[in-house]
């Protein structure tokens, strides 16, 4: 507590850094993953890429990727951009696959009905396919958020500022309170953003009247999928 009372401005700064990176990664992930998922619904080549990409990436440790992405892409190793790129890759792996599954299981009758009504392809995507797939998208997004918030801290070992700096700094200077503060703030941030996405998801899908039981079942399904090794990410 004494440590926190003297250092809270730094904790707030790092929390904001952390939050900003989380926002960037989440937005980029959705922007890349959802179109990829929709395209791989009909493109066999992309579908094969989705399977290989998601199946192999979740096995690759993030620390190794932080080292290799700069070599492959040419961004500086000790940069926020590096962390954002790597964690976006993990996010895309999870959301691409589960959203593709959601698109694949859309009831064909509903799609036929919208075609019969003369809806264009573009409108069918926005007003039929995406809304029907969005419950899965939201629960996959929650999985991605949780692991992203935790993985951002790993970037601290390459000097990228986030709440992870409380771990590296606390370890080097032997301040246990600093490390504990970091863990508590990271977990609290994760919980807060998870609630935010859950509430926003429920608000965006008023027709679903999401019962807690139902969303829990969905979350469980996404989790079970990751256990079978079809998606999910490793630290």
């Amino acid at each position, binding site marked *: 507590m004494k440590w926190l009372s003297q250092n809270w401005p730094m904790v707030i700064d790092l929390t904001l850094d952390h939050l900003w990176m989380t926002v960037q990664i989440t937005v980029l992930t959705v922007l890349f993953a959802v179109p990829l998922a929709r395209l791989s619904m009909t493109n066999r080549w992309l579908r094969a890429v989705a399977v290989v990409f998601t199946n192999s990436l979740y*096995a690759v440790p*993030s620390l190794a990727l932080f080292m290799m992405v700069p070599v492959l892409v040419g961004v500086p*190793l000790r940069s926020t951009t590096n962390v954002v790129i790597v964690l976006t890759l993990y996010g895309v792996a999870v959301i691409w696959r589960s959203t593709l599954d959601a698109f694949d299981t859309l009831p064909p009758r509903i799609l036929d009905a919208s075609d019969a009504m003369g809806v264009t392809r573009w409108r069918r995507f926005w007003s039929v396919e995406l809304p029907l797939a969005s419950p899965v998208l939201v629960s996959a997004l929650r999985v991605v958020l949780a692991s992203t918030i935790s993985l951002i801290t*790993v970037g601290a070992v390459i000097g990228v500022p986030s709440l992870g700096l409380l771990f*590296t700094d606390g370890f080097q200077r032997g301040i246990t309170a600093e*490390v504990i503060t970091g863990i508590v703030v*990271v977990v609290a941030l994760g919980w807060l953003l998870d609630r935010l996405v859950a509430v926003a998801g429920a608000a965006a899908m008023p027709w679903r009247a999401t019962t807690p039981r139902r969303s829990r079942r969905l979350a469980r399904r996404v989790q079970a999928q990751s*256990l079978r090794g079809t998606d999910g990410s490793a630290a």
Partner: protein
Amino acid sequence: MDLLREALVWLADGGNWAGPTGITARLGEHLMVTAIVVALACLLAMPIGVWAGHRGRGGDLIVGIAGAARALPTLGLLTLAALALGIGLVAPVVALVVLAIPPVLNAAYSGIATVQPSVTGAARAVGMSSRQVLAQVQLPLATPVLLGGVRSATLQVIATATLAAYTSNTGLGRYIFAGLKANDYPLLIAGSLLVVVVALVVDALFAVAQRFSVRHR
């Protein structure tokens, strides 16, 4: 790309494989720590998860723990354990076991709990005892899911054991941190390549094991 070639040259140099800090020794450490941690986690979590799944109790608690554990920052746990227990091997092992338990627990519970009630009902109807239902019906049917849990725990441990080299002098992560400290990019890339290959090979082995464990229905 020159860096990549230099990294491969470093890996191809037989001299870097020998000795107490050579690749062979580091690889051995990494796999040994992983095996110990996963074995401990299974020993602790598997019986509880299987029992809960068999009784159909405590499911929400277990799923909740597994979800909450996902949010725990691995680097935070490692540094906290190192500060509390010193920079030896005990601290990372404790932290890694804490991280490996939730996926195993979750898989053991959901693997057993999601066996079709009609199947377990039929087993009871032909006169099997509760214990026989568990041993001869539920466990065999749940094996692929159980293996899936061990698989994700193992991958998580391999990844985090790399990070553990930040606080303790062990495993393949040493090359990465040594490379970071000395700005030796080929070394750090060579270390990363080794870790990636180990993770992918172990994952592939689990995939094969999982395929063989699926029974015909």
